[in-house]
């Protein structure tokens, strides 16, 4: 049985040969201004993530003033629930996914003093289970994504010691697979998004030596397809968001040179929308802040457009300058 190689062909559009930064700023800035956008309305429950994507993208290109800081801070603080956790929006329940985004936003605005760190840490530490895993909220879903959310949040508010690090690491290592990758829970198949989360968790806990860097690196660089784009698992289509999950993972394990940086750039640029700005998952699709951010961070990790996009931290997906200010230093593999 022949394997059908899933890939796309890049369109030959002259405008997409360069980075359309001004258009991207415009699209990030106006995203959500049209309240009649069905997609926007349907995504209200994870608005916290959305704000983090937009703010981080703007901050990386020095245009964070396009967002109204006080408005954003007010929104973030209004999403904190009595138990210390943050919801995805004002009427939504607390969850680790949104707690991390909230803390990242506060960190970027250098406003972490606006929250009671101990209270947030109480909430996060309360999500850790006996086996070291973390549940996303009180309903008990376990996933290595939540391990990263918990550990990254705690690191940003300087409360890492509030959880059992040894157990947290053990759980992540139990999710390691034959290909060196990681899945959602022990037994799950490797997936680039999950790999990024697990590597991030191991980096924050200073346990990256537990990773089989060459085995995993081989798997990760095989995610690059002929088009230059990256997929998340074997035989899947390329997608700009994997230029974050895969590239950040390769960066963390010191193997980013294992993919073709120029081809990757061509792919990301081809996913731009030269009319309304923004970056999409694949060429010709509708753009959104999520893919716009991860297109820009991908370019940053590869060292493209150094003058225009600031260096991004591969573990926290935030500008390096913010982590430096917080005094956070993470050992990566080289």
């Amino acid at each position: 049985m022949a394997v059908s190689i899933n890939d796309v062909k890049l369109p030959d559009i002259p405008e997409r040969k360069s980075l359309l930064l001004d258009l991207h700023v415009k699209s990030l800035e106006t995203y959500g201004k049209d309240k009649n956008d069905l997609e926007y309305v349907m995504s209200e429950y994870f608005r916290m993530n959305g704000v983090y994507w937009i703010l981080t993208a703007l901050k990386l290109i020095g245009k964070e003033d396009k967002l109204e800081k006080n408005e954003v801070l007010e929104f973030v603080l209004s999403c904190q629930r009595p138990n210390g956790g943050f919801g995805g929006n004002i009427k939504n329940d607390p969850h680790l996914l949104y707690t991390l985004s909230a803390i990242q936003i506060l960190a970027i605005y250098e406003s972490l003093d606006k929250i009671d760190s101990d209270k947030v840490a109480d909430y996060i530490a309360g999500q850790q289970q006996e086996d070291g895993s973390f549940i996303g909220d009180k309903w008990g879903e376990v996933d290595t994504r939540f391990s990263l959310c918990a550990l990254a949040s705690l690191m940003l508010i300087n409360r890492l010691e509030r959880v059992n690090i040894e157990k947290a690491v053990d759980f992540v290592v139990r999710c390691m697979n034959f290909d060196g990758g990681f899945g959602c829970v022990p037994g799950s198949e490797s997936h680039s998004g999950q790999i990024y989360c697990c590597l991030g968790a191991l980096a924050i806990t200073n346990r990256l030596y537990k990773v089989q860097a060459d085995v995993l690196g081989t798997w990760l660089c095989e995610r690059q397809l002929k088009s230059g784009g990256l997929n998340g698992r074997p035989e899947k289509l390329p997608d700009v968001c994997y230029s974050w999950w895969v590239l950040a993972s390769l960066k963390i394990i010191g193997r980013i040179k294992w993919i073709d940086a120029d081809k990757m750039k061509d792919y990301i640029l081809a996913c731009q929308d030269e009319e309304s700005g923004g970056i999409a998952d694949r060429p010709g699709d509708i753009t959104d802040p999520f893919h716009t951010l991860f297109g820009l961070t991908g370019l940053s990790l590869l060292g493209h457009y150094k003058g225009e996009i600031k260096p991004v931290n591969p573990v926290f997906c935030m500008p390096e300058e913010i982590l430096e200010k917080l005094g956070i230093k993470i050992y990566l593999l080289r």
Partner: protein
Amino acid sequence: MHGRVKVRTSEEQAAAKKLEREKKIKKYQGVTEEIYARREAGSLDEELLKLTETLLAWNPDHYTVWNIRREVIVNILTYSEVEAKTELFKRELHFLEMCLKVNPKSYGTFMQRRWVMSNNPDPDWKHELALCDLFLSYDERNFHCWDYRRFSIGKSEISPMEELEFSQKKIESNLSNYSAWHYRSKLLPLCYPADTLLPSVSADSSSVQEDKLLQEFDIVTNAIFTDPNDQSTWFYQQWLLGRAHKEERLLFFMHFPSNQMLLLVFNQPVNKDLLNEVQVLISGNILQLEWSAHGSPPTWPCSLWTAVLISVDTSVNLECRFRERALNLFTSSVCAPSVNLEEIGPAISLTAAKSGVLHTHCEAICELLSIEPDNKWCHLTALQLRWAIDPDSSAAKIMDHFSALEKEDPHRKGCYQDMKSKFLIETGIPSFLKKRDFSHLNLSGLGLTRLYHTHFFSAVSILDLSNNRLTNMQGLSVLVTCQELNLDGNLLTEVEEDILFLIRLRILSLKSNLIEKEDSLLLLEKIDSIHQLNIEGNPILKERDSSLLINLFSNLILNCGATSTS
């Protein structure tokens, strides 16, 4: 956000669409608001259950609405009779099945199904497995469904052996079903656990009985012949080959009286606990020593350990004991054990059985390669097998595979170059150690892009790494006895902290690299022993007046092209 194609529409169409969208938005927002309002009012009843149903059918990842739905179910259960309870669970499972049909990859829906089944007083796990089979038949790679299947298996009385057969069937029907190969790698250690488990991660193939593991090569060969372009089988084979798990051994025992330093080098990074098993004796008396890791980030396992040893007569006999072996130092500063390289080296050790199977497998692949000389996966497979079976005598062929890979698959050049570096260094270790003369080592002009296993060279005095393609100083920190280091003609952009661990370094040559920043050169000031530095042909000299640099390094011989000072 995924896979939504941007379509151009006429103004008329756009206006009609807009109207339609506005209606939808109004309805969606209306339902959402009502759900929140009813929850706030505490009306966790059938009516709210219906509202959440409407919304979730529309937006199955709305986590708060799922939470509310669970609250309602919990509430209804508190006052329902047994029959009504059963009916409620049945209805919920039916609703979830409908949701899955609309969106079979929703985290929220699978999460709810787990929750419902965990709380269901009368769970029918057979039905769940049938449901998984159905959804896997639509999409055999749906990882949500695979995970839910494993969850259901865990609750049913189904043995790993039956599951192994299931994975076999899945592979037989489609060889590139990566999910099924993955599952196999998880099941084999459960079905056929190896007798002796080396300390390793659970994902390692050494946890499987060898004969069963070797049988897997038949499946792999078969699969490669059926579809030589499939990557699943290659990753699986890589796992079957396993990694080199060696017992911890001492490579070197060294004493540098002038640095008041004792040094141990292990064949692999080890944790500090292991140092408790080490005894150092001076003229028969045990020394109390505090060991510290040398050159690794704090708390990481490390292959080099040092301890302070003050004012010891160089003619005295020092003995180091570790696991029934003793190393003695008498008048010399370095002691290397005469051990079997198989035992300590980084290469995989093969049993006769494994070697035989790999040989047969390799012959088959080479046959295939003669039909498909440009096939990348065939080259990779053959390369990996030859490397495992007999790296020395097949070195030329292995290098050919590397060339073919770089040509056929240029995007991953970086990966192949690093692998080649590893191969060249790994195969160089036995001859270096056998020679037992550690005065110098020449690794120049090999095209090395990354340094591997450098702790095997930690006893060398003069090291030539010139004319390679190194981009950073990773791996150099273990070269603790190195006095002369030649890094000319590499791609280094800065001097990194690794160099500070070379406490005996006297001569450092960094000619023709890409060093730009002065502050990284300043690090070198921290090495007291250094007295000769060559930085000719680096970009830093174009931007900086070399006389300023000469002033900075006034107490050493600096060669920066134009002038030399002493």
